[in-house]
């Protein structure tokens, strides 16, 4: 059923269709309305789940951790500081191999306080052992929720799953969305059947401590699970696109990359704008391409390498920083290319803290690189001249 809805609703409705047992979250902009929509569904008796309001994101994450350990399908959502506050619990949940599904409405982090969008928040948990995908638009966000459960709960995986959606840009945006039906979701997503759960019938101990003879194997096992997740996700992408008839590509979506001299890389809602610019430049006969990175963890290094094998120049539009090093996606791309091709790498930090990203800026960046007017390296696009001050 096609309806014009906001991102919050598209996400909340998909969560409802996945039949979660326990939902728990704490309000934070720009996430709040996702769980408000779920709260309303609960209040109206349209959602057969326990809906719990927590006293903090730390508690929300802990509550869904406990519920998941007891065998429930769970959901939570957060942004920014909230995700940072959850961090300790998320590492713990991943270590316990609990398939918690959550949405992060991406937002910058303090200080200075900013409620607007970039990707700094989700990057803070990139090493936690959590699968991470970025949705380009609200239709994709809607469709990826059942997929997230399917993958996270797969016995070959059993890891938490974060679906990243750009705060405000997607969450607050009205878009036409083809809403899934219960029948379709049920046909794709079976009820959750945990491998291990807390039960008095068959008592187990979870979260034990592991001395040096044991610890390392647990961590390496997570790495193996993340490697397997890549394949499991591909199966799920294929199955889901056959059922719903929408194909977003696999872990990446390489467009016009075969003969491109310059490939622009982006994640999330920025992809749409970059695609638009690339299409226009193609019409002008310029050999440019787009690489949309959809899966950030596990990072699809092979696909990135394959997509960039003919490119002389690569532009990575970065929405976060790793202060003191290259920005996160740049690090990943460089690592993926090491030992194969070595194109010019332009790491373009853009739109931090919700700074507007005008179309002309994308055109300018790609054109300058295409025409060889700028040197490779890291730079900050759209930054005003400023004097450094300590706030």
């Amino acid at each position: 059923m096609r309806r014009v809805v906001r991102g919050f609703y598209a996400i909340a409705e998909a969560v409802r269709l996945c039949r979660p047992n326990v939902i728990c979250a704490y309000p934070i902009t720009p996430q709040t309305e996702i769980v408000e929509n779920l709260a309303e569904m609960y209040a109206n008796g349209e959602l057969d789940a326990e809906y719990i309001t927590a006293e903090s994101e730390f508690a929300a994450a802990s509550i869904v951790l406990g519920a998941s350990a007891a065998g429930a399908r769970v959901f939570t959502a957060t942004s920014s500081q909230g995700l940072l506050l959850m961090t300790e619990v998320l590492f713990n949940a991943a270590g316990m191999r609990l398939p918690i599904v959550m949405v992060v409405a991406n937002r910058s982090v303090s200080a200075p306080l900013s409620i607007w969008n970039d990707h700094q928040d989700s990057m803070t948990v990139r090493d936690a052992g959590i699968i991470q995908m970025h949705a380009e638009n609200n239709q994709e966000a809607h469709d990826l929720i059942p997929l997230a459960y399917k993958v996270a709960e797969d016995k070959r995986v059993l890891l938490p799953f974060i679906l990243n959606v750009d705060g405000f840009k997607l969450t607050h945006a009205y878009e036409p969305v083809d809403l899934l039906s219960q029948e379709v979701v049920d046909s794709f997503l079976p009820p959750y059947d945990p491998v291990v759960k807390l039960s008095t019938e068959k008592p187990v101990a979870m979260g034990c401590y592991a001395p040096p003879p044991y610890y390392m194997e647990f961590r390496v096992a997570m790495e193996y699970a993340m490697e397997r997740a890549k394949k499991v996700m591909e199966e799920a992408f294929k199955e889901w696109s056959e059922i719903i008839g929408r194909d977003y590509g696999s872990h990446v979506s390489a467009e016009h990359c075969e003969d491109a001299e310059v490939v622009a890389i982006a994640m999330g809602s920025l992809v749409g704008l970059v695609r638009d610019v690339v299409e226009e430049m193609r019409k002008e006969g310029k050999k440019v391409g787009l690489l949309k990175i959809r899966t950030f963890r596990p990072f699809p290094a092979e696909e990135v390498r394959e997509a960039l094998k003919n490119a002389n120049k690569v532009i990575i539009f970065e929405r976060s920083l790793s202060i003191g090093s290259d920005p996160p996606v740049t690090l990943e791309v460089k690592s993926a290319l090491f030992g194969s091709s070595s194109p010019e790498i332009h790491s373009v930090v853009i739109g931090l803290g919700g700074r507007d990203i005008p179309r002309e800026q994308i055109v300018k960046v790609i054109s300058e690189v295409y025409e060889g007017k700028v040197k490779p390296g890291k730079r900050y696009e759209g930054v005003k001249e400023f004097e450094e001050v300590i706030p």
Partner: protein
Amino acid sequence: MSYFGPGHGACPGCGFPIAVKAVLEALEGKAFVVNPTGCLEIVSSMYNRNVWGVPYIHSLFENAAAVAAGIEAALRALNRKHEGHVVVFAGDGATADIGFGMVSGAFDRNHDILYICYDNEAYQNTGNQQSALTPPGARTTTTPVGKRQPGKIGKKKDMVSIAVAHGIPYVASASVGYPNDLKRKVKRAVEFEGAKYIHVHAPCVTGWGIDGKQTVEVARLAVETGLYPLVEFEHGKLVRVMKIKEKKPVEEYLKAQRRFRHLFKHPEGRKIIEELQRIADENIKRYNLLQQ
């Protein structure tokens, strides 16, 4: 396998295994145990050497109450409430310090959980550092005794009153000196739907500087002096107290433990002993503890 052990690694004479066994026996093993980081977790949950005969989860230091709330919600959602009670065993640091917010949140939402705080009055797992439940004057590694400082300065946080103030249906204090009383309180607690809190005084042989054989005796002295009143609240109302047959001076309790020994020599010591005696006397008056 029993509900707890054999094979746990607690020190000989440790207080909290008495509490854990009493609680699980009272519940006949129908319990989902949540346990934050601490002594109990370390002595019981090593990988491959788990000693729990009931479902058990250790998550983090500060989130036992929230994890318990999540388990309880899941059991409700999955129609599995009949399987057992959700029970937290947490130390004083996890309860009154780092996990305090989560305890308050779970009580505020009145989750159907039984929260047991075993109070050994310091961070004993990391070697006896002061917590909010360390009593005034106690020597710990972070409140050492020196010229300037006579041990811990400040009060012992009143967790029982704080729990009562949340309006939860059942709150009690108990002691490993009286395990049958604890068992009775556990059985009474689970008759109530909602959050239940039992604060259990549990000596630590190393941190307190007592002999393993003295655990029960020292625990009982805390009760007999009035320093540790055993009380019971139902829906906010004081319903029962354990009467003191013969009131003992706090000095008798303090002298039995190495952590208070300096009070009898330090220039500030006398004042602290008097303060502790005043606290005991006030408890006796407040709860009408003396047998008539």
